[in-house]
């Protein structure tokens, strides 16, 4: 808009006025609007899907390499109706939730402690940072030796991946609370618990929720790896089992399911941010 206005010199503008009357502003060549842009953003992925389908149907893509999307959908339907898919999905989700709850709880508790107390920081923080330096997936062989290949090992790995992002962001959030607001709380006569409840935790919440979003991503990654290494049930088991029989349609299906659950988890985290941070100009939107 502004570019166009700049390119029309005063003389040309006069000409336009004379021809079309008072309302003759230069017309914009393209005007897509919000809906248009939204549709456009879906164009590439949908095209890709169609091309994939056509190539598979025409026999240019071997079904052993990459089955047609329609085949994957049919497989999904079949697996749901015969019962095993929903069961496996439930087991995977349960592992993720359990691991997230344990790891998140530990991360939040340690983060709060270290955020409030310099003594706790001196005692705990270095050790936590050292453990954090290990890519948590590298610990998997050791975890298997300790816990064997079972539920405990998978939940442990998820918890390990979740603890650190929550810990770091909780500590950071508490430290970043404006000291002037804490001082105000003291002037208004708040006790320590009230100070934490009314000022410090709300102030740390944006950072904590950022930690939750990171943690959701690592939790999912940990689960995929743990289930792929050795499992008798779950989505990962489904994929490894399908590999034995070259069922690429099932493998693709499990990959898609992992992706969808990742997207769903992120959507839940965003919803939480919108609800809990309605006051925040960057999250709450217009009001």
């Amino acid at each position: 808009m502004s570019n166009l206005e700049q390119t029309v010199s005063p003389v040309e503008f006069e000409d336009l006025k004379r021809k079309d009357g008072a309302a003759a502003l230069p017309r914009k060549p393209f005007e897509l609007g919000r809906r248009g842009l939204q549709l456009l953003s879906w164009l590439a992925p949908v095209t890709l899907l169609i091309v994939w389908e056509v190539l598979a149907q025409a026999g240019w893509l071997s079904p052993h390499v990459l089955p047609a999307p329609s085949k994957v959908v049919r497989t999904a339907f079949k697996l749901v109706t015969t019962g095993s898919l929903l069961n496996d999905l439930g087991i995977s989700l349960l592992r993720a939730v359990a691991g997230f709850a344990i790891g998140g709880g530990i991360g939040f508790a340690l983060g709060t402690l270290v955020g409030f107390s310099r003594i706790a920081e001196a005692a705990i923080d270095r050790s936590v940072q050292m453990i954090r330096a290990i890519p948590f997936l590298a610990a998997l062989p050791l975890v298997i030796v300790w816990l064997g290949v079972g539920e405990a090992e998978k939940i442990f790995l998820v918890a390990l991946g979740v603890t650190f992002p929550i810990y770091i962001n909780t500590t950071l959030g508490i430290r970043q609370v404006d000291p002037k607001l804490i001082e105000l709380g003291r002037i208004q006569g708040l006790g320590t618990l009230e100070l934490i409840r009314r000022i410090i935790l709300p102030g740390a919440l944006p950072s904590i929720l950022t930690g939750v979003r990171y943690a959701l991503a690592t939790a999912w990654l940990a689960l995929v790896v743990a289930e792929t290494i050795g499992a008798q049930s779950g989505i990962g088991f489904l994929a490894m089992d399908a590999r034995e029989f070259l069922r690429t349609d099932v493998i693709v299906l499990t990959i898609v399911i992992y992706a969808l659950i990742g997207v769903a988890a992120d959507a839940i985290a965003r919803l939480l941010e919108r609800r809990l941070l309605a006051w925040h100009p960057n999250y709450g939107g217009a009001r």
Partner: protein
Amino acid sequence: MTLHVVPSSVASPAVVVTNLRRAYGSRIVIDKLNLRIERGEFVALLGESGCGKTTLLRALAGLDPIDGGRIVAPRRPAVVFQEHRLLPWDSLWRNVSLGLQVKDPRQRAAAALAEVGLGDRLDDWPRNLSGGQAQRVALARALVQQPELLLLDEPFAALDALTRIRMHDLVRELVASHRPGVLLVTHDVDEAITLADRILVMREGRIAFEHRTKGDGASRIARAELLTELGVVASHQTA
């Protein structure tokens, strides 16, 4: 480094400071300072930057320890700062009732907000307020506690000139109806003359000059005198 803050009894003045001393390391910021503010009295404190006036206010608020002397003040003076210090995550009424120990905090907050002209914004967020409105909420939050001593630390410094004039009127009204003792720390001589019953000039950690305002007639003379005390006119004359 002991706190000599003694709760004042009912009929006593709003605050009495005796021989106050405050030092940061070897640097003495406040030295043998004496000050008494009655209930309902509006005292303005002028002084150059770094003369110790904010240090005095923080000591009276109980925010900093003192190194000597005695402060007899109410247990919880109310403070309004240059920044509004509203909690961005709480609605206006929750901000105003912060720390208020009553059964009906919302009604109390509503009444206080109505007094500052924001009675229809109870559930709004602080981020939707202008600078002047936010400062009015901060005033409501201070006065809802029914303080015996109200400490104002340059509360109008960040506001535009017109908003500042409106705030002056509002503060005058509020102080007249609630009658706390007020200590206003400011850089603005005219603001001090407009609002205060008594104007103090602080220099090198002590009260160096005191002026009682006697209505608007004397304000021109007072202004020149005060500026001289602050070292402003003197330097102009020599230049």
